[in-house]
């Protein structure tokens, strides 16, 4: 992907029928630290890698509770993610107020997608530079969706976004057939293993990752460090084969402190590294 004369405005088409600004926004998602999601019939697990910029600062919050039955994990410009989470929370509260029932996940992601689409068709706006993995439960069961800056959304059994997410996706592709009938704890174990894949050899510790669960009869909450570490220990010692004993449910406790400084996500220059897009294949077609 190289700089060209059609990429200045989001409202300019290229001769090949591409909107480069939107594609660049999707690049921003790829530069963010990894986030993964998987779901079974009854639960959805979201996880992310939390790397702080320096030792002096705490890591940024990438998993947000949207409502008791919906949570979101983001990758990309965390500020954009925070703003969209606030919008999602507001929508859930308003729907609950009007209809006295939880907002169905499918409807929320459509609203989110439409909101993102607006930014691809106004010359005075820019696309949101964040990808969202929306996990939630409603009457029709457990769902996991991916919302991207282009305004598209897709439903997944399992997915990973952000940097080095391909490693996690490979792992998930091997195992996804078993997810639908997985138990809650097996699903969390798979999430942790998928996160480990993105670390490329670095030891998986609860201090560098965050895991959140939502399920039937279980409101969305982030698992606290202790619980996560116990789960990590359970399968790393066992060599990654046995399912860990059911870990006690942690009370709802947010895993990380608030953001500090600019996201590392924003710093990377657009043109270098990252997955190079083939010329002629618009990524939005995937």
């Amino acid at each position: 992907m190289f700089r060209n004369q059609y990429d200045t405005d989001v409202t300019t088409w290229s001769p090949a029928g591409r909107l480069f600004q939107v594609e660049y926004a999707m690049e921003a998602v790829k530069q963010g630290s990894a986030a993964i999601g998987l779901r079974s019939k009854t639960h959805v697990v979201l996880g992310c890698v939390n790397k702080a910029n320096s030792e002096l600062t705490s890591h940024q919050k990438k998993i947000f509770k949207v409502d008791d039955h919906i949570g979101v994990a983001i990758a990309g410009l965390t500020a954009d993610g925070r703003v969209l989470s606030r919008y999602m929370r507001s929508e859930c509260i308003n729907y609950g107020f009007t209809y006295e029932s939880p907002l169905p996940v499918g409807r929320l992601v459509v609203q989110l997608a439409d909101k993102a689409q607006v930014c691809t068709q106004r010359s005075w706006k820019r696309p949101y530079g964040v990808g969202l993995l929306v996990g939630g439960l409603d009457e029709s069961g457990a769902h996991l969706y991916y919302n991207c800056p282009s305004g598209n959304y897709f439903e997944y059994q399992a997915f990973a976004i952000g940097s080095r997410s391909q490693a996690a996706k490979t792992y998930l592709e091997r195992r996804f057939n078993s997810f639908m009938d997985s138990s809650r704890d097996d699903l969390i174990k798979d999430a942790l293993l998928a996160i480990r894949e993105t670390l490329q050899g670095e030891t998986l510790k609860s201090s560098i990752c965050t895991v959140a669960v939502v399920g039937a009869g279980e409101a969305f909450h982030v698992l606290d460090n202790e619980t996560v570490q116990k789960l990590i220990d359970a399968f790393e010692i066992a060599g990654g084969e046995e399912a860990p004993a059911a870990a006690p449910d942690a009370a709802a406790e947010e895993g990380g402190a608030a953001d500090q400084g600019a996201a590392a996500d924003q710093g990377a220059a657009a043109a270098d590294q990252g997955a190079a897009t083939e010329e002629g294949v618009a990524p939005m077609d995937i």
Partner: protein
Amino acid sequence: MTKQAANWSPYDNNGGSCVAIAGIDYCVIAADTRMSTGYSILTREYSKICKLADKSLMASSGFQADVKALQKLLAARHLIYQHQHNKQMSCPAMAQLLSNTLYYKRFFPYYSFNVLGGLDTEGKGCVYTYDAVGSYERVGYGCQGSGSTLIMPFLDNQLKSPSPLLLPAQDAVTPLSEAEAVDLVKTCFASATERDIYTGDKLEIVVLNADGIRREYMELRRD
């Protein structure tokens, strides 16, 4: 041309009474469960007590449709607060929010007479009493509703601390134990039920303390 009077009113009074008493480390909130309109009973089993946050409960009498709308609004506002602050609202914070919410409709008020009870940030019992447009005050005990004129003098007789003009300032909590306070509330309602036609059927008592929330019921006269 003679002045026209309205041929309908947006308000109705569904009756009932509410009481709250603050203790050293507990708070008792109670209300009857009768909902009426005019001289008829709509239902004998309607709860006027609503949990707004972990440590705040609100009991409201008056026009229950307005009460319900107010409760929903406060619940939604509390959700927003939790998302933004990552914690539950304290009772004093909720008290201020309720006051602001009521005043917001100063010129088309919520016909809701509220008593807010809970534990403050130090774990001590607190009760706030309101009028329909948000004027509020922290007190040691309060009551609202159709039976309030009967209950309040009795509570004053039993609980009133010496004049607030005396120094040092008295704490706004009763020296009663939790069991004594619950007993007092039962006595209040038993008496009010005798003479107030809108109070009766069943008494719902909610006790909030460090261990959590406890609910109990007592039968009242159904006539």
